[in-house]
């Protein structure tokens, strides 16, 4: 709605956050409403800034991958992997193939875990608590597999510079393979529920529409972009690690609404399961990690396709520790289009729309210091 047309006199401001039961992380959304309709939207980030980019400058490379795993609780592999790939690129390290395969297995399993978690949160937001319970029950399977493979359910710390921190024995590999059909079965079941259920359609269909042109304009990434018919996936567009070795499809949908974003993620679970199956079957032998102590000086950017979209790390390396690291988390690209998605929607649709971009605010929070209107420093 353009500003002239807006009836500002009858507008009410509905603040959501910084601390609100809807949000799992502190963030502030200012929703202007006229009756039931959303007329304007604004947001503020920065309530959860932890300064990880600064802390990393005082850590050595093996410590840095551990610390970067803490950037995001859900997709912690995405950050340590992006950093490892960058440092390996600068030093021209040939990482053992086995290490790369093992990293890919946990990385894809993490995507399944993240999508299942998101599905539960989304279902809860539309009041479908049964699906919330079921998808979190299935997510438990992936967490158990992580514990078997790496020794920890959440902080996996599989990617390190030079390979994978832990090896994968045959027994665990078989266990992972045997759990995959259960996850695929659940994804099929959910696909059926979300394509057929009329109540779900009432809540999600044509809600929060972001057309292809708008998606392109805002440069959205990940499942949000793919649900708006943008065929963009770093795993296919500029393959990193060993993705060239596998056959898989990039899931693209054309609904451009909340329902399509849900379906894209559900279908991605099946694709990831397929990648993991190929990975374990093709797993080469040999070493899984190279020793790495000192780095060459240089700068580079590395990108990986995290569960939420493209995750980019820009780094300048020194001999013992990184000199500068800049993380562009996927949510950072997906927040601006929220305004377009929310305009003229109902208040009750605000939670599903915000959740449909799979926001992860603590990864996104950055701080820029301004003095008298001039940018002094970015942290």
């Amino acid at each position, binding site marked *: 709605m353009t500003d002239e047309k807006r009836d500002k006199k009858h507008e009410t401001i509905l603040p959501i956050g910084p601390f609100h039961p809807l949000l799992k992380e502190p963030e502030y959304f200012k929703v202007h409403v006229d009756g039931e309709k959303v007329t304007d939207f604004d947001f503020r980030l920065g309530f959860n800034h932890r300064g990880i980019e600064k802390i990393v400058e005082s850590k050595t490379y093996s410590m840095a991958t551990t610390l970067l795993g803490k950037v995001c609780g859900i997709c912690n592999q995405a950050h340590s992997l992006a950093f490892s790939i960058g440092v390996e690129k600068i030093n021209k390290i040939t990482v053992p193939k086995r290490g790369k395969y093992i990293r890919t297995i946990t990385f894809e399993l993490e995507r399944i875990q993240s999508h299942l978690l998101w599905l539960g949160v989304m279902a809860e937001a539309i009041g479908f608590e049964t699906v919330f319970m079921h998808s979190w029950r299935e997510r438990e399977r992936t967490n158990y597999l992580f514990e078997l493979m790496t*020794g920890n359910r959440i902080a996996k710390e599989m990617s390190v510079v030079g390979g994978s921190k832990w090896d994968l024995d045959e027994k665990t590999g078989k266990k992972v393979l045997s759990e995959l059909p259960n996850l695929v079965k659940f994804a099929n079941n959910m696909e059926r529920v979300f394509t057929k259920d009329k109540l779900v359609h009432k809540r999600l269909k044509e809600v929060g529409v972001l057309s292809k042109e708008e998606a392109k304009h805002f440069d959205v990434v990940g499942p949000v972009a793919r649900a708006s018919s943008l065929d963009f996936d770093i795993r296919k567009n500029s393959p990193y690690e060993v993705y060239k070795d596998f056959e898989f499809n990039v899931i693209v949908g054309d609904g451009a609404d909340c329902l399509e974003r849900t379906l894209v993620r559900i279908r991605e679970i099946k694709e990831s399961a397929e990648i993991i199956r190929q990975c374990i079957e093709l797993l080469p032998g040999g070493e899984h990690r190279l020793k790495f102590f000192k780095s060459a000086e240089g700068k580079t950017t590395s990108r990986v396709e995290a569960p939420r979209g493209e995750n980019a790390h820009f780094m300048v390396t020194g001999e013992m520790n990184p000199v500068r690291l800049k993380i562009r988390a996927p949510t950072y690209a997906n927040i601006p289009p929220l305004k377009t998605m929310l305009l003229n929607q109902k208040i009750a649709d605000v939670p599903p729309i915000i959740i449909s971009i799979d926001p992860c605010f603590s990864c996104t929070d950055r701080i820029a210091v301004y003095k008298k209107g001039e940018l002094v420093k970015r942290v």
Partner: protein
Amino acid sequence: MLREVLRSIFKKPATSSFPFEDHVPENHRGKIKWIPEKCIYCRLCERSCPTGACKFIPPKKAGEKGTIEIDIGKCVFCYECVLACPKDALEGTLDYKLAYISKSEKADEKLRKKN
């Protein structure tokens, strides 16, 4: 959905009855044990620890060797110290019940054992 509901009536619960039954995988990362007999005091573990949890405590009297202490309040169980140790003097255990009610209780190991 209805089929799922009917099936669930006869199924075992998905959760485990925790205090009576534990399921910890064999390579779970739990509390770290230091074995003084194997240690050569190279302090590589201290240098590789990202959180500063692993510390060398200097000896109080001359002739003693000092100890390696791991502050489990700071430790994130990344096992960098275990991997860095050249003599396998640090060992992972499956002990994961490391919660304390207060800091003073944490200091008093004896009190913990009594409970």
